[in-house]
């Protein structure tokens, strides 16, 4: 199945891309996807601990099962608003 992977801020800079296509086996969980994706992008791996991951615009749990066409967003710690 095909996934859209969105990257922001520092992750976008590290991966040098704001959006990447990814293919995974049906039934793949978010945790399994992250294992494979971070293996393919090792410079992002150290950030896993502080990484927030959203699936289709909602923060998701590593056990969540992914589906065809899902949008997975890797979100660094946020810092909106004003100082």
């Amino acid at each position, binding site marked *: 199945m095909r996934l859209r992977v*969105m990257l*922001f*801020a520092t992750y*976008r800079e590290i991966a040098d891309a704001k959006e990447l296509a990814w293919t995974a086996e049906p039934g793949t969980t978010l945790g399994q996807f992250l294992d494979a994706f971070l293996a393919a992008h090792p410079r992002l791996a150290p950030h896993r601990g502080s990484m927030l991951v*959203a699936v289709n*615009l*909602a923060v998701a749990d590593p056990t969540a099962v992914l589906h065809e066409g899902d949008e997975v*967003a890797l*979100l*660094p710690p*946020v*810092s*909106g*608003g*004003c*100082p």
Partner: protein
Amino acid sequence: MIEMTRRRIDVDAVLDSVRRDEAGAVVLFLGTVRADADVAALDYEVYVPMAKKVLADLAERAKAKFGVLDLSIAHRIGRVPVGGDSVAVACAAAHRREAFEACAWVMDEVKRIVPIWKSVPPRRVRRSR
């Protein structure tokens, strides 16, 4: 009203969006870009579709939590110069206490959970002639 905009925030529009006759208090919070050392502007990167969803949910939660009448949030995308408004939160309530509290709570949540990232753009070096 929830708004993400690349243009200057229309503060009057944000205010007008919450005004109503039943309100005895309207509070407006503006977050502005501060002239910290080496800061001429801030860049705001936003995961827009998720940010809109989270902000809308925040506004609804604030209404339920504080019993305010209405609440609007506007946030900038892109570059905001020093002194510019990066976020506006307006809230109408029967009384001032809950209006102030709701605005403060919403701002704390914006900084905690909304997918927005700010960075300091590199300063342009002027070449001497």
